[in-house]
């Protein structure tokens, strides 16, 4: 048997206790040091953009809320922003506030979820369990408002489906006080623990230049001193009316990302409280008869960063093109900048620190390991165009010009 000397490769994935989703990180290691990293995704492509083009405008929010189990308020909101831009309508003020409340509650529970998982990744299971325990009342509140712990399905074109009854407002405020107190305690515990400092500080640094170069978004960018936030830069819903500030940290390491998330949680709780107190009276939705032809872009700040939706309408009752770009799609490639040259223990932590969501990142790909064949999105697109051109030639259709694409 012929043996060749190969560089040792450590496989994180496709199924690995680090993360619950399917992803594959191929770490080339030299002892404990990672010298190269390769990412392979697309284990579970669901074709959401394709399905979306078969659904009516009002059905799509239910679909896109299932792009990701955690960002199930931001994706529909970004889609609705796009559709409302096509139709040129604005939802009533009360609906805007309800959208803010649900989105910020989502951010609170998502960030607490990450803090818990972050604890688990470094073997600190007590933080894991406690953070998830504190997250539970937030999910209960969401259930009380929308009827679901996740996949709220509360936004629609022109407003919201479910109103927030006045009776539960005191309860929301009371529960949020408790969550705020617990989160403050958790924040203090993280900021003061010397062992956590030793483990998180200076780990997986993503410099400001790299953050800009890889165009990362959300807490990943804000942890690297790039203070971008769609809520502040291009306010949608009622974010413009509320008093809040963008949190950012200059260090760019895992600790900075954790601090950004924890402080954002507190900021979001403050925002929900303010929004609940300011909640204007009035209708929660307007009647929308039809969506005119045209195209619109909508974006929203999901807990992981900017989620972007492009919708094109031909005047019918369903979108003819719906394009989604979720935040993890730009955050995941930044691993090449932050992971190479680090210890294995730090790399797995850095991989988890951007809070990657692979269900958002899935793109169609063909991987045939027997023939060593990999077709990614771009190759497949090119193949499709080549085939179209070939068929057109065969049937004698006129040559396509570049403008037609």
């Amino acid at each position: 048997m012929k043996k060749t000397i190969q560089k040792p490769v450590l496989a994180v994935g496709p199924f690995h206790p680090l993360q619950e989703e399917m992803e594959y990180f191929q770490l080339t290691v030299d002892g404990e040091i990672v010298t190269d990293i390769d990412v392979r995704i697309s284990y579970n492509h669901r074709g959401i953009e394709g399905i979306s083009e078969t659904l009516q405008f009002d059905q799509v929010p239910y679909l896109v809320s299932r792009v990701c189990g955690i960002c199930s308020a931001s994706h529909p909101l970004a889609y609705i922003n796009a559709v409302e831009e096509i139709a040129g309508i604005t939802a009533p003020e009360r609906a805007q506030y309800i959208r803010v409340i649900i989105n910020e509650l989502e951010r609170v529970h998502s960030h607490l979820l990450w803090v818990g998982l972050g604890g688990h990744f470094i073997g600190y299971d007590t933080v894991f369990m406690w953070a998830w325990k504190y997250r539970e009342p937030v999910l209960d509140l969401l259930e009380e408002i929308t009827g679901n712990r996740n996949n709220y399905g509360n936004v629609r074109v022109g407003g919201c489906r479910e109103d927030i009854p006045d009776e539960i407002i005191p309860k929301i405020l009371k529960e949020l006080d408790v969550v705020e107190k617990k989160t403050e305690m958790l924040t203090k515990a993280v900021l003061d623990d010397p062992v956590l400092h030793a483990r998180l500080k200076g780990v997986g640094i993503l410099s400001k230049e790299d953050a800009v170069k890889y165009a990362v978004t959300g807490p990943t960018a804000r942890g690297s001193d790039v203070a971008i936030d769609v809520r502040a830069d291009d306010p949608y819903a009622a974010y413009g009316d509320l008093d809040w500030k963008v949190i950012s940290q200059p260090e760019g390491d895992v600790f900075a990302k954790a601090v950004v998330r924890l402080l954002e949680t507190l900021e979001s709780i403050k925002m929900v409280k303010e929004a609940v107190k300011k909640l204007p009276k009035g209708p929660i939705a307007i009647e929308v008869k039809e969506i005119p032809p045209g195209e619109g872009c909508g974006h929203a700040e999901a807990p992981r960063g900017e989620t972007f939706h492009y919708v094109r309408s031909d005047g019918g009752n369903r979108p003819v093109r719906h394009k989604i770009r979720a935040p993890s799609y730009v955050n995941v490639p930044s691993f090449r900048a932050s992971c190479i040259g680090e210890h294995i223990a730090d790399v797995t932590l850095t991989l988890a620190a951007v809070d990657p969501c692979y269900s958002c990142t899935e793109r169609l790909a063909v991987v045939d390991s027997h023939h060593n064949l990999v077709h990614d999105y771009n190759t497949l697109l090119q193949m499709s165009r080549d085939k179209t051109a070939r068929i057109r030639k065969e049937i004698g259709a006129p040559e396509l010009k570049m403008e037609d694409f």
Partner: protein
Amino acid sequence: MGAVFEGKGKEMSTSMTILFWILVVPGTIVLGLIASWIVRKVSALVQWRLGPPLMQPAYDVLKLMGKEILVPQEANRTVFLLAPLVGLVGVILLTVILCSVLLAQKTFVGDVIVAIYLMVLPSLALILGGSASASPHASIGTAREMKLVMGYELPLVLAFIVVLIKTGGQLSLDSISQQAPVFSISGMLAFLVALLCVQAKLGFVPFDIAEAETELGSGILMEYSGALLGLWKLMHAVMLVALPFFLVTLFLGGYTGNYLSGTGLIVAIVLLLIFVGGRLLAGRSKFMDVLALLSFIGVCILAGLGKYVLILVLLILIKNTNPRLRIDQAMKFFWGYCTIILFAAIILASLGCYYEISWL
């Protein structure tokens, strides 16, 4: 065996001796499984979870015993298959020696050296098994385990030297266990460092670096399955008995006799009844669950196992209030802080010995 052991202190009757030799091995395994239940249960309570039932560790091992054993194609079969046996036998032998010292006062000169060597055996077996299993995850785990062993063996031996100085240089566990060096500054420092070394030997957080679930799968044990994995689990369970016993012998003055006579017996029976009742009702309330655990610990204390339970609880608390360290940080911790502390402790102990100040 009788020829090896030189009876010191009070002699046991022949029937008691026979009973002791019959019960000691199954007894340690049962105690080990109970100890691993306590670890899981107390961790669960700290983390606001319910935790497993009492029999869960035994169920786990029994289930694994009936499962298929997969040996990787590239693995070195002999070493791969024998490593868990070596580890388990070593740690059981260690427990037997410690039990015979603690309970039967049977000892021989130099048994403490034997015990220290036997304590390395489980880690050595893990390294053998990991490196024989031909998996990149296991090999990185093995490298980490090796570094960790090198890291904590130095402070452990230094802590042992402190004990030797404090107890007058006697090399038998029995005479060491007559004294309690922990009631002095140097002894206390040595005890705390030795506790952390035991934490690392057990592979508990913050030193579960070789297994590191979220980094290496389960690292060193990656390729083990079925009965072999069951043996590793069993070895770990018995280590939960042996290593705290070792600390009790070295630092806390050994076994001081039980209180299971007269009133103590009645209290123990009442506590046991509460324990059984609590186990039966545990599904219904968390209060009964905690009560059962506390009464169980009460029985342990009455049976003279108080010091053991104390060490176990300390280990569990350290386990649940720390994140995992990186391997270089762990090495730095053991070779840096721990070693410096222990050199200071050795100087203190020597001064105390020279000027006859017992609290130094």
